[in-house]
């Protein structure tokens, strides 16, 4: 029905001589959000880093827009792939505006176009341009940094967005606000997104598809509803760890001011 943005074809990868991914096959449809979930060390970050050639696979192929990453110029590939990590990874030595402007400037955009784009993106992620464009990263709260990081990743209008635990370091209320913000942005932009998280509730809230990794193998890939209903013991263990918090967080998204009790 839709075209494929990213396809992992029988991919194996290792880091430091240790095999961390075993024969993973997975495809991400254009405009969809796929969450990679699993415990620490399950290989989800490695899988993500194969997409923008921060790593190359030992075996198999990663296809972006139908082309193997090996045949992409890594610089070109990365400039059309947004990247957001935990704590945002903003450049501490330049302002929020300059952070967001990084890739557009590398692409040779005019100063006016860059400035307009910066303001547009700040508004999109809910940061008042007048107030925030001149700020330094260390003058922002954790949630604001994450919003700025998202704006930076979206700056050059990349068709593909890679997010590695982008909301991992936030308090639950801020996390809920950002989930809502992400969903709103995604409803306007319809980017292909690969989201790494160890938070099953987050995956259920944000993703169209959930891919579950376990010790380097893909053990499930389905809609959130079907993953929840899975009979696989390993998937059920993951689900059990977060089931209790899900409803609380869902309500927190709707009513951020509600005082809620940690289960």
């Amino acid at each position, binding site marked *: 029905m839709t075209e494929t943005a990213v396809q992992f074809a029988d991919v194996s990868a290792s880091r430091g001589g240790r095999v961390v991914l075993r024969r993973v096959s997975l495809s991400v449809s254009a405009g969809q959000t796929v969450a990679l979930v699993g415990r620490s060390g399950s290989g989800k970050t490695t899988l993500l880093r194969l997409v923008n050639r921060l790593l190359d696979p030992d075996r198999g192929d990663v296809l972006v827009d139908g082309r193997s990453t090996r045949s992409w110029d890594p610089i070109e590939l990365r400039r059309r792939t947004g990247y957001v990590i935990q704590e945002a*990874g903003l*450049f*501490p*030595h330049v302002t929020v505006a300059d952070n967001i402007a990084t890739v557009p400037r590398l692409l040779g955009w005019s100063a006016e176009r860059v400035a307009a784009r910066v303001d547009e993106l700040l508004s999109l992620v809910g940061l008042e341009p007048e107030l925030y464009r001149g700020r330094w990263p260390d003058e922002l709260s954790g949630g604001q940094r994450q919003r700025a990081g998202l704006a930076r990743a979206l700056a050059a209008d990349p068709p593909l967005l*890679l997010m590695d635990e982008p909301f991992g370091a936030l308090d639950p209320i801020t996390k809920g606000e950002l989930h809502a913000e992400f969903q709103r942005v995604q409803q306007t932009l319809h980017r292909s997104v690969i989201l790494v998280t160890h938070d099953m509730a987050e995956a259920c809230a944000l993703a169209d598809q959930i891919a579950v990794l376990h010790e380097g193998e893909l053990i499930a890939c389905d809609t959130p509803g079907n993953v929840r209903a899975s009979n696989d013991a390993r998937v059920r263990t993951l689900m059990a760890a977060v089931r209790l918090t899900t409803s609380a967080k869902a309500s927190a998204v709707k009513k951020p001011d509600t005082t809620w009790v940690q289960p």
Partner: protein
Amino acid sequence: MGSTMNELLAFIASHRAEMATRLSEHVVLVAASTAIAAAIGIPMGVVAARRPSWSRPIVGFANLAQTIPSLALFGFLIPLPLIGGIGTRTALVALTVYAVLPILRSTITGLQGVPPAVVECAVAMGLTPRQVLQQVEWPLALPSIVSGLRVAVVIGVGTATIASAIGAGGLGDYIFRGLAMVDPTVILAGALPAAMLALAADAALAAAGQLADRRRRATRHVVVLALVAALAVAIGLSGRSAAGRADLVIGSKNFTEQVVLGELMAQVIERQAGLKVERRLNLGGTAIAHEALLSGGIDVYVEYTGTSLTAIFNEPPAADSEAVFQMVRDRYAAVGVTLMPRLGFNNTFAILVRGEDAKRLGWKTVSDLAAAFRSPPTVRLKADATFKAGFGYEFLERPDGFKGLSAAYGLQFAQAPRVMDLNLIYRALAAGEIDVTAGDATSGLIETLGLTVLDDDRRYFPVYDAVPVARASVMRQYPAAAAAIRSLAGRVSAADMRRMNFAVDGEKQDPAVVVRAFLDRIGGFK
């Protein structure tokens, strides 16, 4: 303290032009060596930060270089081809060696301190490795690099004072001259500006670091600052090279008499031969002056035959002026150095008494003095039991000092000689605290304090005739210079030398002025 301050201000006022030259030499030495060290240390630091396996040997090597004492490093460098010799180039090499480590280390520290997540993001955003370095790692490492530069500059300002010992000039000239003259005013004239220079340079770089901390435009500011510094160095260097290449280089060791004699050589060549002369005065000792002469760093300096014999050619001291001269001349000839005619004075030990005692008792020689204490005495002091001798520690201890002297002349005093500080003996004698001492035959204080030198009539003391030594090839190339030096043969008496020493040490006159007056007075010079 107040009077010291006044003397210092007076000294600075009377040496304004020279001081400006020394200060600019100092600034150029430090700025150029720091710039070269940055050009070496920063790229090395970048490489080492990238490859941790390389960083250990690189830092280890730089650490090792740092531990070499500076004077020793200068000593090692003098005989080396290309980077060695004496003068600015060697000093730059040594100062650069010292400046590399702090810069290298701070570069590595700065780059390794860049958060990995920030670098990962930069790479993932599609910055090329070069852009990652320029736009992310470099600006984030800059405050650390600037702090390394600050350390390098402060070390450099201090170490550059020692560069004076190998003829590179700078403020160290005053420090070494002051140490040689035991004149705290002159030491301060070098040390105080050096300290202020260090503070000012540190403050300037700290300000640059502040700009670097103001983030975005930081890199541009630092680039501008570096350009300004480079420009200053270029102006300084071009100012020096505009002076043109000299025909001959005159050297001297680092005490007053040597500086006067170096100036004498320089002026007589300028006046008689009309050649262009460069002065490399205040070299740090006999060994450095000799090495400089052999390596061509200098072409002429004045040595003492006894010093050549014992310190350079390792022979026992001897007292026969002509025999020593010939022996030394042959040894010098073998290494391509021409011994010129003796200037006319012998800078050896001098047995000194008060002038009025010598006159009243008719003492002219050391033998006269010895006879006065033998029994039956021919002439007697009023109270010979109270007659006191006082000597410097070294003279008392050395076998060729007092022991040999008393054996050679049969000299016996009623009281054992007192040990005194060498700098005090002249005034102690004049004040009557002691009645006889052994001083320096060319000390400027002898005439001033009304002292008399008793002639060493048995030729006990080794001879130290002042004699110009010159590179034979240069003397062949410039016969007019050789003729000019020869024209001074026998024309500088011990009394002349004493007067000139006193004019510089006692009256604080400029050596150049003193020498000009001397040449005008003895006549026969243009």
